[in-house]
């Protein structure tokens, strides 16, 4: 059974803050149907949502690939946005470049990337200025 993998793919619309979080909500539903434990679902839901929202707010959308195996859930979010100049700085709690209009909606606390770090078992973030950002999130399923 170890090689059994379920793949899900999403296109995230960068101009549509109204439906941001739809992909994460869908993945949550799928994991629930698969009988994945609530603690694991929580870890995936929080970390994927933060990355999905970042993609909409900071990078004008992108694509999400989710693969689910009995051992782990892997989420790769790739965008063609402006990139992140200093990843260490961006990872700091409270650091945010979100504009005022976005802050008024409750975003911009600078806690998104730190949340991903906290809730994912593995987080890899690569970014190139002017090219885009890729965030990889892995949550292990305890056997």
């Amino acid at each position, binding site marked *: 059974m170890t090689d059994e993998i379920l793949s899900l793919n999403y296109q995230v619309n960068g101009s549509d803050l109204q439906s941001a979080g739809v992909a994460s909500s869908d993945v949550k539903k799928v994991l629930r149907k698969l009988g994945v434990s609530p603690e694991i679902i929580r870890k995936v839901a929080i970390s994927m949502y933060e990355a999905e929202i970042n993609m909409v707010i900071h990078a004008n959308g992108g694509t999400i690939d989710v693969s689910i195996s009995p051992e782990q859930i892997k989420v790769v979010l790739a965008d063609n946005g402006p990139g992140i100049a200093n990843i260490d700085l961006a990872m700091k709690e409270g650091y945010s470049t979100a504009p005022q209009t976005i802050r008024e*909606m409750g975003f*911009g606390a600078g*806690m*998104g990337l730190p*949340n991903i770090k906290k809730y994912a078992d593995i987080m890899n973030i690569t970014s190139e200025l002017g090219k885009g950002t890729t965030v990889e999130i892995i949550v292990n399923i305890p056997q």
Partner: protein
Amino acid sequence: MTVKEVVKALNLECLTGGEELDREVNGGYCGDLLSWVMSKAQSGNAWITIMSNINIVAVAVLTDVSCIILCEDVTPEEDCIQKAEEQGVVILKSSMSAFELANKIGNLI
């Protein structure tokens, strides 16, 4: 105590919610910064906030809170109510402040 019982006890206005009103309220979280709420609100909590845009629905779904309580008479946008109905998220409303609501709910449950 169930969401329904909290609604009754505190005379909250019920903007959305069907069978989810029978869920148990096991505690609460107050906050308006969504990424704080994402990280801290626990499954079954009542989430007290003044944030009323559509994004609160996804946060409620993903944190699995039992209800959103909008305080200080905040009114959500129409698309927010619609999305909440679609997703089975309970939205309640009150003229009380977050402090008053938290205090009262804390005493109830």
